[in-house]
């Protein structure tokens, strides 16, 4: 029989435990006491000014506010989702469910369920109608949690049960301090307080913030809903989100918090490429609103923030284009696609503005790179004539490889094929420059391979429906049976109409060439950037490398083959549950919007 040993708790941890217990028991108690009259029990004071919404209780100086609207639906969705069965069938989850810790947890839970005569998730589903709210106040630097109920008596009983339970864990320890404020009883440990204020369970790390909420509950007065930015932000929200959040960007920016988000200069070219324009918008925008929704098919996220194209200073026009009208090229979707990302970026403009965009110490490095790359590109100016030759807009495509065609041994480590595609402004003029650079790079690579006694790359040129593909493929010693990692690659370039394709394999270059040539290709997206990750293809490429992953697990985690195999199979099972992740960033009217969606296997 499992024996439960009561642990000892510090005052702070006791309050934390109280919070957890209270939130759980809150649900049970509310149901078991549904017939009780409102405002009965301790700490309830007669009142005339009663806020209906948590935002009405919060001070105007609130800088962040989040609300989970329908916790009941979320819990039901998670508990009843078809994925739950699959997750529970995983070996690692099975082991967890059979562990002593979980057995002890279940025993405690059953005790609580016995007290209220109801399963916990049923109880929680029933009582979460009031929503869970969390807010951050700039003036007091306090955080507050407000949980709303429609049964105050049940809440009062819950608080009593929770305090009795926590104090019962260690009878020798000091009880919570209790304080009275305007007829309400607050339980205090260190600076943290918890109290019932009418239908609200209030927990905060700042007593002053808690008092101001009580005052507002009793007397009314200015509150967060008076904030115009809050009003504007919440007006952007849809009606059916499961939860949402709002952040007062203006106050955060003016207070000097998170200053690195609002700078003109970056330390990293990749960060600037990916986020430079968003950083620029954050310098002027007032707020950001975030919402999420869940259903059986997955999780959706949306972020919106005010946006005006004239906020974007010239060095960062590379990100959104003139009048923020830049859109990403049409995404290519070859077979066995794992990942695709398409984005509008004027990379030539970014490079030529490097002195305005990057910190001083990085400019020297970039200038050196500029010089070296110019040499590689037959002496032409890398910024103006190479990057500048590209139309704004790039896409990256990653696919799982098929090795059936290989004349070399099949590589033991299977690397996905990947390609970069962009449009050229003057294709005929720059083709030769790009081809010479490609040949130079392959030449350098061959020298290095030769020094190491490795197989060499051989040039091949082919014509595919009028498009030129130049590929470098490995030729192996006929007696060789080693599946070198090199054989994953046959670096290729292709000139397809106005497009340039740089691919890690000739097969992908061919496939992309045909896709670009097809009649259906060409219509750009309406987004600035868009990406998509395919869960099934990702699981397949991981499966292709199962033995490698097992070996790595054996050496890193000390597992034997069987244990490592189980661990990797669990990972693969988890990845297989995710169908797709997609995201896009777009300017929609006077808002900059980011949408993301994670689809799961149903």
């Amino acid at each position, binding site marked *: 029989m499992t024996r439960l040993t009561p642990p000892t708790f510090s005052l702070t941890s006791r309050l934390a435990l109280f919070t957890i217990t209270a939130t759980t028991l809150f649900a049970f108690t509310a149901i078991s006491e549904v017939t009780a009259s409102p405002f009965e029990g301790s700490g309830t004071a007669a009142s005339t000014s009663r806020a209906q919404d948590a935002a009405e209780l919060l001070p105007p100086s609130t800088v962040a506010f989040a609300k989970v609207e329908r916790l009941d639906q979320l819990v039901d969705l998670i508990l009843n989702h078809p994925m739950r069965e699959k997750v529970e069938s995983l070996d690692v989850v099975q082991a967890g469910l059979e562990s002593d810790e979980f057995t002890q947890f279940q025993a405690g839970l059953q005790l609580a369920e016995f007290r209220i005569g109801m399963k916990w998730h049923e109880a929680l589903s029933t009582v979460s109608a009031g929503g869970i709210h969390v807010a951050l106040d700039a003036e007091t630097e306090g955080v507050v949690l407000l949980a709303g109920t429609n049964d105050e008596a049940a809440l009062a009983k819950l608080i009593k049960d929770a305090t009795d339970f926590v104090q019962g864990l260690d009878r020798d320890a000091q009880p919570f301090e209790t304080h009275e404020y305007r007829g309400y009883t607050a339980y205090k440990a260190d600076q943290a307080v918890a109290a019932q204020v009418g239908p609200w369970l209030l927990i905060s790390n700042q007593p002053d913030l808690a008092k101001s909420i009580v005052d507002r509950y009793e007397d009314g007065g200015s509150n967060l809903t008076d904030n115009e930015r809050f009003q504007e932000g919440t007006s952007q929200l849809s009606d059916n989100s499961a939860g949402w959040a709002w952040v007062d960007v203006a106050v955060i920016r003016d207070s000097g918090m998170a200053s690195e988000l609002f700078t003109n200069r970056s330390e990293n070219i990749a960060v600037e490429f990916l986020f430079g324009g968003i950083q620029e918008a954050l310098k002027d925008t007032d707020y950001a609103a975030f919402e999420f929704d869940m259903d059986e098919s997955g999780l959706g996220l949306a972020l919106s923030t005010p946006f005006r194209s004239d906020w974007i200073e010239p060095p960062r026009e590379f990100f959104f284009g003139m009048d923020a009208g830049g859109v990403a090229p049409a995404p290519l979707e070859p077979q066995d696609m794992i990942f695709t990302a398409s984005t509008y970026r004027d990379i030539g403009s970014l490079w030529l503005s490097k002195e305005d965009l990057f910190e001083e110490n990085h400019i020297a490095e970039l200038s050196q790179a500029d010089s070296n790359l110019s040499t590689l590109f037959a002496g032409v100016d890398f910024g103006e004539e190479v990057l500048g030759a590209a139309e704004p807009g790039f896409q990256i495509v990653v696919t799982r490889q098929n090795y059936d065609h290989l004349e070399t041994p099949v590589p033991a*480590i299977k690397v996905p094929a990947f390609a970069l595609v962009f449009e050229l402004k003057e294709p005929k003029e720059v083709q030769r420059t790009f081809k010479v650079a490609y040949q130079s790079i392959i030449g350098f690579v061959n020298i290095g391979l030769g020094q190491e006694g490795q197989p060499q790359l051989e040039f091949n040129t082919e014509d595919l429906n009028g498009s030129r593909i130049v590929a470098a493929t490995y030729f192996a010693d006929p007696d060789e049976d*080693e599946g070198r990692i090199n054989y994953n690659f046959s670096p290729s370039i292709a000139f397809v109409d106005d497009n340039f394709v740089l691919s890690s394999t000739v097969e992908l270059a061919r496939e992309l060439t045909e896709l670009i040539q097809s009649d259906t290709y060409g219509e750009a997206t309406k987004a600035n950037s868009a990406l998509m990750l395919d869960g099934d293809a990702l699981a397949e490429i991981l499966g292709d490398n199962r033995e490698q992953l097992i070996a790595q697990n054996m050496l*890193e985690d000390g597992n034997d083959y069987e244990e490592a195999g189980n661990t990797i199979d669990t990972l693969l099972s988890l990845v297989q549950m995710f169908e797709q992740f997609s995201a896009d960033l777009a300017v929609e009217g006077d808002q900059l919007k980011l949408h993301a969606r994670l689809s799961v296997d149903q």
Partner: protein
Amino acid sequence: MKYPPKTNRFARRGGPIPNDRLNEIDPSWAWAQFEINDSQEWNAARVNHLHRRAGFGITPQQTRQGVELGMEKSTQAVLEGGSDESFARETRILANAVGPRRAAEANVALWLHRMLHTPHQLLEKATLFWHGHFATSAAKVTNPKLMLDQNELLRNHALGKFEPMLQEISRDPAMLIYLDSTTNRKTHPNENYAREVMELFCLGIGNYTEKDIQELARCFTGWEVMREKFRFNANQHDTGDKNVLGQVGPFDGDEAIKIILGQDAAAEFIASKLIRYFMFDAIQIPTQLVAPLAAQLRRTDFEIDSAIELILRSNLFYSDHCIGRKIRSPVEMAIGTMRTLNASGNLYELANSLNEQGQRPLYPPNVKGWDGGKDWINSSTMLSRANLIHQLATSDGTKFKDGDLAGWIEGFRVRGTEQTVEFLLDHLVAVEVPSTAKDGLVELANSHRRDRNRQLQLVIAAIGALPEFHIM
């Protein structure tokens, strides 16, 4: 029966044997076979001694089996090595996976995995010996596959005959790259490899002349590495007569190696190194003590396994001159502790820790390999050694085959803190520890009586900081 019936450790020794004491040893007694009788029983301490020296250590369960098996069968089992299909399969899978990655650190982890799990412990211990002897470093040989190939070459010959191993290592691309000997033309013979063959691989300083090195270099002319593969370039081979160690003829490299191994000094040189590796730390070993083992090498045409068998069965091996007279190398200490505890873990991290302690496999410090002995110990390495044992015992990353340390000790009927401390010392330490240290361990164990696993973790970590833990 309660554990333990009595202390299963040897009386405390320490440090190298003084030269005058080595001179006093009677060689005929030293190399005579150790006999079990009423005054010298086959017990757990001797089983553990055999396995610590001929391998990296064994679990308490295996110690018990070794005692039951008796000396003859235990020794025979060590010499023959076990076979384990699951180990063979795992090693194949790992090699197939690690090889194509061409990552030096993965090679180190792969070798540590072999040391930890191989049923043929002597083979892996001998491979490590030859890696130190034919020192080649991945720091210079940047193609990891070449290092992996050399490692396999050493393993293939580790318990075979020395001559074919030397002939193959003379053609090994990793070795020739490491010694800057990838070209050797008849007009400009490259003396690097020839010098190391004489000085470090076969004879030792004082047993050859500079002229012998020059002549030997001529024998190896035309031996080249091209595109990281060995090739014999007949056009560059000097076909003229050479005078190597007094013998004259148009010798090539293989013939020159036979001449070198025919020198008396060759057998004595190899025998001395084997004694230092398997028996005790000593800077100089008296010639008369080495002679019987050298004679055995000559008699068997340099058969390594029979030389090691002579060592493992000898009076000297089980004597006070040997027990507690060797400082555990970092690899011996780490792998030994893990094997004793039936544990495994992150072998990349283990490799990094061994690097701090001065013995990262595949990365010997120079052409002489690891000096060993007292060089393993200084204030920095001692701290790192103790930290490693603490980490092994207490980290969540350590995987115990028996679930945890409480599971590991279960089944041995170890009761109470004193018995617990004795049990741990018996299996982790070769020699007796001072009573004050033991009292400290008992006190530590007493303060964690409620949590058996934690108690064992902390006592093992404390044992790792004892000086006696680091000798064997």
